């Protein structure tokens, strides 16, 4: 059974000046033990997709619709409030972008981790704190017993993110969803946190969804990739294939525009223009206004996501299956 199954997800937000279409038909899935990277820039809908999965969006103004949205065997669209709360933290746990604002400032670290444990397991406070201590040790926090008593404001960003990971793992979830977990951190801390996540995933065999705009993080961490743009899926495939031979023009352009790949000062390949505004998405393919290969047909209808080769899909009419390298 798949850990995560999202089929044709649409998320819209109604704001006073109109409708914002954050996610426009995204489908993705995660098998047990797999690691999936969701890549996208601002406005691509990557964070909203996972927030919608856990029903963390305020509804209204958000409106979620999908053919299917399942976490394990729980239908997240039809589940009751209790069922949803039971699943959050236990089946799927989430780690967010800014660790400095992710914890309640008036409670200690120990209290907040123990609270998670007591929510999903029938244990008393003492036992929960003991398990919290274990959780902190697992994320390589030295003097964990002291850290249990600290308040969030006493820890640095890197330490706090370890705490968040510890808290997420404390109930042994089937899947960890990390939403830009390292963006707010220094580069050496970033590397350490990514290593930690990878190690834990290898150890526990849990599923991992890594949401990021950073292709370097994707290359380092995940096995399979979904590329989002303008609320839609542009391309999916195994990570090696995506980097070695990207199919979609957006993926190609994105890979080419990464600075610092080649030694020396040089002009970088840019993608002209800006990301689409979710309030006024372009007709047809969301990338066509900026695409070097766009033709008239690109604007007329949204290209469907099609399998172009084994395990590889792309939503582009300019990519013909037989042209994909073996």
């Amino acid at each position, binding site marked *: 059974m798949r850990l995560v199954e999202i089929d044709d997800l649409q998320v819209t937000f109604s704001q006073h000046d109109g409708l914002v279409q954050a996610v426009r038909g995204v489908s993705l899935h995660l098998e047990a033990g797999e690691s999936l990277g969701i890549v996208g820039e601002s406005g691509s809908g990557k964070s909203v997709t996972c927030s919608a999965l856990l029903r963390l969006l305020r509804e209204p103004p958000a409106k979620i619709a999908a053919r299917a949205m399942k976490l394990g065997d729980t239908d997240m669209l039809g589940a009751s409030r209790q069922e949803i709360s039971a699943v959050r933290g236990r089946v799927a746990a989430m780690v967010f972008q800014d660790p400095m604002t992710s914890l309640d400032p008036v409670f200690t670290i120990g209290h907040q981790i123990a609270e998670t444990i007591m929510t999903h397991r029938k244990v008393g406070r003492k036992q929960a704190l003991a398990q919290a201590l274990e959780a902190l040790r697992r994320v390589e926090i030295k003097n964990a017993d002291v850290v249990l008593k600290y308040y969030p404001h006493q820890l640095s960003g890197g330490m706090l993110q370890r705490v968040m990971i510890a808290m997420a793992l404390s109930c042994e979830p089937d899947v960890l969803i990390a939403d830009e977990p390292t963006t707010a951190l220094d580069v050496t801390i970033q590397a350490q946190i990514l290593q930690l996540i990878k190690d834990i995933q290898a150890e526990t065999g849990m599923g991992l969804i890594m949401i990021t705009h950073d292709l370097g993080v994707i290359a380092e961490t995940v096995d399979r990739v979904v590329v989002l743009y303008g609320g839609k899926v542009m391309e999916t495939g195994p990570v090696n294939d995506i980097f070695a031979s990207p199919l979609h023009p957006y993926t190609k352009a994105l890979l080419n525009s990464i600075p610092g790949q080649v*030694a020396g000062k040089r002009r*970088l390949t840019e993608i002209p223009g800006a990301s689409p505004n979710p309030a006024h998405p372009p007709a047809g393919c969301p990338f066509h206004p900026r695409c070097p290969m766009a033709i008239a047909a690109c604007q007329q209808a949204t290209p469907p996501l099609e399998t172009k080769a084994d395990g590889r899909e792309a939503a582009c009419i300019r990519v013909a299956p037989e042209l994909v390298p073996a």
Partner: protein
Amino acid sequence: MTAPALELRKITKRFGDFCAVNQVDLAVPRNRVVALVGESGSGKTTTGLLALRLIEATSGQILLDGHDISRIGQKEMKPYRRQLQVVFQDSYSSLDPMMTLGKIVGEPLQIHGVGSSAEQRDQVQVWLEKVGLDGSYANRYPHELSGGQRQRVAVARALILGASVLVADEPTSALDVSVKAQIVNLLQELQADIGLSMLFVSHDLSVVRSLADEVVVMLRGRVVERAPTDRIFTDARHPYTHALLDAMPVIDPKARRRRTFLSADEIAARTPRLHPSDLVAEPLSDSAEPQLVALAGSHFVEAIVTEHAA
């Protein structure tokens, strides 16, 4: 030899007992980009603000085009501000949301009384186009633009007075990947177009690699390594520089590897030990304390000079 566009000599900033910037030397040659690299707490941002005289140094000198501007009054600073400008990381909060883009970009001209209203309007148009925005954008407001476009506006505003030195504090850090490339390209074009010199403060080594001529690495307020960009990437000598380079994610899944990390103390323990014969210039002091020494190829590294080098 002409004076560097911007030079900092032994610049130091103390906040009470805490030393944020400790005896930093750096020079930005004319029409060159020097990157100031480090993580949080390194003092790189503070150094940038010191160079701009937005905060006052505890000691040390700042020279703009050879002129010592370290201690002159704010009034005397005003003409120098036409030459020395800044672009910050957060374009959203550095542009006044109540002003149109035209007003924002034209404000420096107004403040310095340059040209008539009509001439100012024309200059605004010229500069909007120079940074890649259509002239009609003058009537728009910041919230109507994307992050990358706002950053272009910030650059236009910074350069409209004809500044020759730009201090850029993490200008691409808050931008999407594809937009980073746009801003990097823009800065390169302007460098060629108007002979701009830049002090580029950043933690993003990949952007630095594509943009900078020289890299200065800071750790806890001190410069630990300084060299031309290529040498930093191919022949770094300080363990902290290695740590930074090692931590950079590699854009090739096949090159994935497990990393080990050194703690700050472990890095301090691995300060390079060099024999006097390795150096191309006499070390400044005889002490056994780590100090910045000169290696071949304009390469400086903080090391301990000892006869008994490893």
